[in-house]
């Protein structure tokens, strides 16, 4: 059932277009949105592994009828094996990524329907479109297709920010778009350089060209292409120097939107990171660049999180800091390290979603996100407070929960790779993360309630609690049985660590 691979992208697109038509019909939108969102995590479970060729154009080697009467210039050279059409590749790692991404998306959409005063078809459109775009980025094996869907994801992110009525969302959205419109063409320029040198946009073929000496792998044009693509990668995932704008973007969206957008960042980070590792890992300094950027992200993200007084901004910076752990895993470039990094990515997407949704309840009840004005929410919502606390434990890496396993693997990996200093830094930053989280937790839940704090909505939607419970359940499963996840990630990690694929 290989056509399901394409459907993983097409279905959310169709959902988005359909929901946009239902504007202003509240009841219908609620039911239909949740029903349609259920397909997101279901499709990757049903699909088979394999490649999907759009338009059915396989490489000429496998298609002798099309290869009839062609000159030896084509049939006797590598051109014969190149992929002429867009190709999607779906393997076990992609299955896990798309499944977890679909789950987070489902829950974020589910919560968004019940937390907003009246469901908005446009909001649902933007969320589904973003989900489709990021799924395509995860699956695609074609670097120009990556660019197109990268742009759609950026536009959908802007849409999600514009939907919320948070103060200052227009300014932030405009800033994000201006930076994006500088970076995205530069990413395209990098793609153009690669296309010009290798004559191809299919990643597998680019790697084939570089590996088999069709191009000189050390020439400066490829270095320039590498630099430009890495620049796009930094922007897409919000690593420094783009960490400020990315955390601002999270803080200007509704909680459900922020939970979804951090999943966008995590999976764009992973997908493009894998591509960069696949193409450029032969460059001797690529490992150090990834490690350096990730370290900067960790240190800058987490130290800036301490200084914030805005709750959502704080989690936004923490989310950026946690991205650094994934990058460390990828940068270690051993099979064990990369598995750990990818596992951390999966965990991170779920945990940050829990925190955004959980602290979003506070925002829902009071309309305030400034930690200095909040307090005493423990009395009002003990269950949510407990769930948020569990989420914070998960993020800090407390045993029995999933991030403990992945961070342990990361530290072991860094020791095995001969870089024990990284392990020390990671442990220290983990402690700082936990302190930052506890500071926010104390400010919101534990200290006595200020007198001027007004609770606008006593009742909280059950949907939020259900969503957090589901995510925590998956976290617990991954924490108790990490091999459930790592067995999916192992094959990809092994092939990445083996140098050029």
């Amino acid at each position: 059932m290989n056509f399901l691979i394409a459907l993983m992208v097409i279905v959310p697109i169709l959902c988005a277009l359909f929901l946009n038509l239902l504007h202003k019909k509240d009841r219908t939108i609620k039911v239909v949105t949740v029903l349609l969102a259920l397909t997101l995590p279901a499709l990757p479970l049903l699909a088979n592994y394999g490649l999907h060729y759009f338009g059915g154009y396989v490489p000429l080697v496998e298609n002798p009828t099309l290869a009839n009467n062609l000159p030896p210039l084509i049939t006797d050279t590598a051109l014969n094996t190149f992929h002429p059409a867009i190709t999607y590749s779906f393997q076990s790692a992609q299955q896990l990524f798309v499944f977890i991404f679909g789950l987070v998306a489902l829950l974020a959409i589910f919560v968004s329907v019940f937390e907003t005063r009246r469901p908005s078809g446009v909001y649902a459109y933007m969320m589904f479109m973003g989900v489709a775009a990021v799924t395509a980025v995860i699956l695609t094996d074609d670097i120009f297709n990556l660019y197109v869907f990268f742009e759609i994801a950026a536009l959908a992110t802007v849409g999600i920010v514009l939907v919320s009525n948070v103060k200052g969302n227009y300014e932030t959205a405009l800033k994000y778009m201006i930076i994006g419109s500088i970076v995205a063409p530069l990413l395209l320029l990098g793609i153009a350089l690669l296309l010009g040198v290798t004559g191809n946009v299919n990643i597998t073929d680019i790697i084939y060209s570089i590996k088999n000496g069709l191009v000189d792998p050390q020439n400066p044009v490829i270095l320039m292409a590498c630099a430009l693509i890495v620049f796009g990668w930094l922007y897409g995932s919000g690593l420094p120097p783009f960490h400020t704008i990315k955390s601002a973007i999270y803080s200007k969206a509704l909680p459900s939107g922020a939970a979804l957008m951090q999943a966008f960042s995590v999976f764009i980070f992973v997908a493009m990171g894998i591509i960069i590792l696949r193409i450029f890992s032969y460059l001797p300094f690529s490992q150090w660049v990834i490690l350096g950027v990730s370290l900067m992200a960790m240190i800058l993200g987490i130290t800036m999180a301490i200084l914030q007084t805005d709750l959502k901004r704080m989690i936004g910076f923490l989310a950026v800091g946690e991205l650094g752990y994934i990058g460390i895993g990828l940068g270690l470039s051993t099979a064990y390290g990369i598995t750990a990094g990818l596992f951390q990515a999966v965990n991170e997407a779920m945990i940050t979603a829990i925190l955004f949704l959980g602290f979003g309840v506070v925002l829902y009840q009071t309309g305030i996100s400034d930690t200095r004005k909040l307090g005493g929410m423990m009395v009002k919502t003990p269950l949510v407070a407990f769930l948020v606390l569990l989420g914070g434990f998960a993020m800090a890496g407390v045993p029995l929960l999933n991030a403990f396993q992945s961070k342990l693997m990361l530290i072991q990996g860094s020791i095995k790779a001969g870089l024990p200093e990284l392990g020390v830094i990671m442990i220290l930053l983990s402690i700082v993360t936990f302190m930052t989280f506890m500071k926010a937790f104390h400010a919101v839940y534990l200290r006595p309630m200020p007198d001027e704090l007004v609770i606008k909505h006593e009742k909280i939607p059950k949907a939020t609690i259900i969503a957090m419970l589901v995510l925590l359940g998956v976290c617990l499963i991954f924490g108790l049985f990490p091999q459930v996840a790592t067995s999916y990630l192992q094959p990809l990690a092994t092939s990445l660590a083996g140098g050029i694929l």
Partner: protein
Amino acid sequence: MIIDVQLASLFTAVALVVIGIFAAVFLDNLIKKVIGLAFIGDGVNLFLISMGYKAGGIVYIQLPGMAADWFAQNSAYPLPFALVLTSIVIGASTMAVMLGIIIVLYKKRGSISASKILGE
């Protein structure tokens, strides 16, 4: 260093990109920033187009009476051109959204200066 049409247009493209980045980073007026962004997009498109150019070649349309072999050896390279068709539309649509946001922000804040609106 021999300059032919292809190299010259590649250089023009890079120059446009640099002018655009300069405008987008250093000019304070939001509309001018967006004009700069439009130039970056144009520059990258021109870069792609000059990659597909073939000196002494013909247009990629097979007219009646052209032998398939001769045509294939002489025509320009179609892949970059097709990519540009997509990328032009992408650029124009993001431009429209940005200008829309600028108009609304002007109504709210009464200014189109980046340092006043975006600097906090």
